């Protein structure tokens, strides 16, 4: 029997699954921190507590799970074997140490380049470098020269650029190498991180998976090609501006507009796929995904509002920045990961337990290995969390923000329970 193309390229279950487990732990710690320090959401956004929560969410949860998921998805998207599983294990261990030291450093934050931040930042840069090598080497060996591959390569390079920029920013606060305000670097850190790394990665993977999951054959790839140029132009422009003291504000606005145009094209691509889909009913994994894509539109609006408030009305940084950050990091990234967990994790675990048993014994299907009712529950409570954050932060109501953090903790716990059900799956055969 001739082998199919992708299963033989699939990585070991042991490469992928620990990322989801550690990611869920990172998410839960960040959620508990959020409840304990809920009042900080109503204040200035650069505080030890907010920095700890943000970095736990981004590095300990979002990037952790994305690393794991990508090791599984690279073979699907690029039709190639992952370059090195050993490198993937090394990346994971170094990343865990990095997040631990960085967050513990932030908790003692006094705008100094502390020992822990230096060590954490260095570990993270090494981990990201190893991850980038693994991704880029896999991409180089890929026979499929698609737009997906191009987006994923670009996102790997931006990730590397962004962690280096993050570390430089913190060091510059202590050593003052360049006479540039840390807030100027922070703007670029956000643009490169959100648009360069995360958005481009999501577009690269979604370009391949959304049509696959929804059964659509003819997609508007032309929109993604145009988007690729626009987002790259915007991100590179923001990066260059970071190094120019007192650059004209309008130039930064232009870089954001370019990224925004790319986001609109991506949303248009998805709308086209959704409207042409043969599989009308959304399954457990696609519901949170659809919610997350809607929140992306909302997060984009919030960032535009932040920018207009800052550039044209001189509003001080504060609640709106935090709301925009929550909509992007929790609303979009986390919502998307919640949904895509159920489109990736069950399959690698199912292959591990049942691949050799199909046809010989009755086996469950991947969709029967988790509780769909729990998926619906954490999707509804996720929407409630977002609504509470929007109301609490816009109207500055302390107890609504507290309620938002509590519902967020509940949501994330339900997700973690369901993910654990998958991770610690017990073989079922009849």
């Amino acid at each position, binding site marked *: 029997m001739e082998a199919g193309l992708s299963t033989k390229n699939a990585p070991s279950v042991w490469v992928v699954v620990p990322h989801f487990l550690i990611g869920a732990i990172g998410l839960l710690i960040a959620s508990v921190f959020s409840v304990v320090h809920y009042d900080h959401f109503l204040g200035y956004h650069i505080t030890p507590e907010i920095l700890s929560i943000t970095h736990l969410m981004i590095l300990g949860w979002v990037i952790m799970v994305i690393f794991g998921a990508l090791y599984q998805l690279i073979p699907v998207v690029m039709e190639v074997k992952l370059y090195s599983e050993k490198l993937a294990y090394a990346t994971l261990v170094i990343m865990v140490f990095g997040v631990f030291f960085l967050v513990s450093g932030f908790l003692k934050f006094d705008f100094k380049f502390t020992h822990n931040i230096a060590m954490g930042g260095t570990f993270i840069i090494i981990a990201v470098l190893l991850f980038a090598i693994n991704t880029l080497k896999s991409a180089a060996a890929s026979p499929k020269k698609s737009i997906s591959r191009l987006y994923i390569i670009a996102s790997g390079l931006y990730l590397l650029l962004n962690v280096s920029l993050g570390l430089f920013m913190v060091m510059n606060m202590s050593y003052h190498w360049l006479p540039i305000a840390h807030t100027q670097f922070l703007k670029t850190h956000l643009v490169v991180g959100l648009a360069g790394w995360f958005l481009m990665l999501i577009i690269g993977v979604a370009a391949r998976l959304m049509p696959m*999951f929804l059964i659509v054959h003819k997609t508007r790839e032309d929109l993604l090609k145009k988007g690729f140029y626009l987002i790259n132009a915007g991100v590179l422009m923001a990066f260059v501006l970071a190094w120019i003291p007192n650059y004209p504000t309008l130039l930064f606005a232009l870089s954001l507009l370019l990224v925004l145009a790319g986001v609109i094209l991506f949303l248009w691509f998805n709308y086209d796929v959704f409207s042409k889909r043969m599989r009308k009913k959304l399954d457990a994994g696609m519901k949170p995904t659809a919610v997350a894509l809607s929140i992306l539109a909302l997060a984009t609006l919030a960032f535009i509002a932040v920018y207009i408030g800052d550039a044209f009305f001189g509003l001080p940084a504060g609640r709106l920045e935090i709301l925009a950050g929550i909509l992007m990091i929790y609303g979009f990234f986390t919502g998307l990961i919640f949904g895509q967990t159920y489109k990736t994790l069950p399959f690698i675990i199912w292959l591990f337990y049942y691949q050799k048993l199909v046809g010989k014994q009755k086996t469950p299907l991947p969709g029967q290995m988790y509780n769909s009712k729990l998926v619906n529950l954490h999707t509804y409570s996720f929407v409630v969390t977002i609504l509470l954050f929007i109301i609490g932060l816009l109207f500055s109501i302390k107890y609504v923000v507290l309620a938002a953090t509590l519902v967020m903790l509940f949501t994330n716990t339900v997700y973690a329970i369901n993910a654990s059900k998958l991770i610690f799956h017990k073989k079922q055969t009849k």
Partner: protein
Amino acid sequence: MIQTQFSAEEQKVLDILKQVPDPEVEVNIVDLGLIYVVSINDEAKTLEVDMTLSTPGCPVGDSIMQHVQTVLEVNFPGYEVKVNLVWEPQWTPDLITDEGRAQLNQ
């Protein structure tokens, strides 16, 4: 090539293959239109199936083919079963049967 006419015996093979689901979409591979050709030779005791996958990157492709191989070996004892993976013509959603479309949206 996609076979459009099936003998009674070949139809029996298709009915058996309806036990094999695509684990992702949870619809059987016959109604998804993944089976292109079925040929049985009773004298030589051979059974050959040409099938495709909905995408070359299909992460569960091998397990679907393994499933096809196993159910045919169990149901046609004594036959040499051969499952060929083909990519021409390329699968499109138009190949899904009405029954498959109904199952997709249940």
